[in-house]
């Protein structure tokens, strides 16, 4: 377990550095990418493209592995069902992302600037996540572990 926690911290650091280096942490940059009809800024395409290279290689390697290095099995979701929850969740997320320019990773990383806007957004995001938790635990008590 200690190894897994250390891996989490290390991967978190890489992720946090990546968000700042790429400027994905900057809502203005994100909105400029999403603004296809305005002064379009292609930066984010490089972030996504760049991220997909190591990630795709890792998923190709995974196919030849029976288990990850520090766990007994892979915990990768197997569901292929496209349902209303998936699509409506993506719609709500897209709305919020397009309104402000922050998605969850940058929302966390931007906290270190100490900007009140970042803190307010992250707090509201946590409330949203908690609301989802409350809504789902009411619907299916006893709780389904996911």
């Amino acid at each position, binding site marked *: 377990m200690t190894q897994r926690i250390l891996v989490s911290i290390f991967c*978190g650091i*890489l*992720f946090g550095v990546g968000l700042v280096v790429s400027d994905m942490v900057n809502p203005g940059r994100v909105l400029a990418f999403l603004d296809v009809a305005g002064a379009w800024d292609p930066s984010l395409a490089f972030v996504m493209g760049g991220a997909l290279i190591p990630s795709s290689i890792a998923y190709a390697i995974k196919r030849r592995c029976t288990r990850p290095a520090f766990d007994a099995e892979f915990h990768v979701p197997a569901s292929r069902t496209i349902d209303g929850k998936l699509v409506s969740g993506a719609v709500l*997320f897209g709305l919020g992302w397009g309104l402000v320019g922050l998605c969850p990773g940058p929302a966390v990383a931007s906290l270190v600037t100490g900007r009140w806007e970042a803190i307010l957004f992250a707090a509201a*995001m946590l409330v949203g996540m908690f609301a989802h938790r409350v809504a789902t635990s009411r619907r299916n008590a006893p709780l389904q572990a996911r």
Partner: protein
Amino acid sequence: MTNLPELNFIWPLSGGLLIGLSAALYLLLNGRIAGISGLTASAFGWTGAGISALGVGFLGGILGGAAIAFAYIRHAELAIASSPLLLVIGGLLVGFGTRLGSGCTSGHGVCGLARLSPRSIVATITFMAVAAATVFVTRHVIGGLS
């Protein structure tokens, strides 16, 4: 709308590679998806399995990595133009939506696309399209919203 400084593509590309490397290592070492919305919820114990040390570690890593990067690699001024009300609405939508849709830009975008998950492909196309449409409406139809 704020004026953004030009960004050489080397920055988003190398930042993206770091984010992808983080996702790759997290998969091959810990056997898990580096999705920040899921990790955030798990760090607060909102995924039905108690407080996850891996989630806490990853979030702590992001904060540490972002702090290091802001201090030593790239001094970036964040352009956040949203009003408090918009930040709250956006945060709630991003928090609830990513949980309902089981993922965000990292989980569906970086990890899901890399493994060609049909759910993630649909989710990513949906939230990108909705976010771009939201920016189009707020910037070019309403003519600026803050």
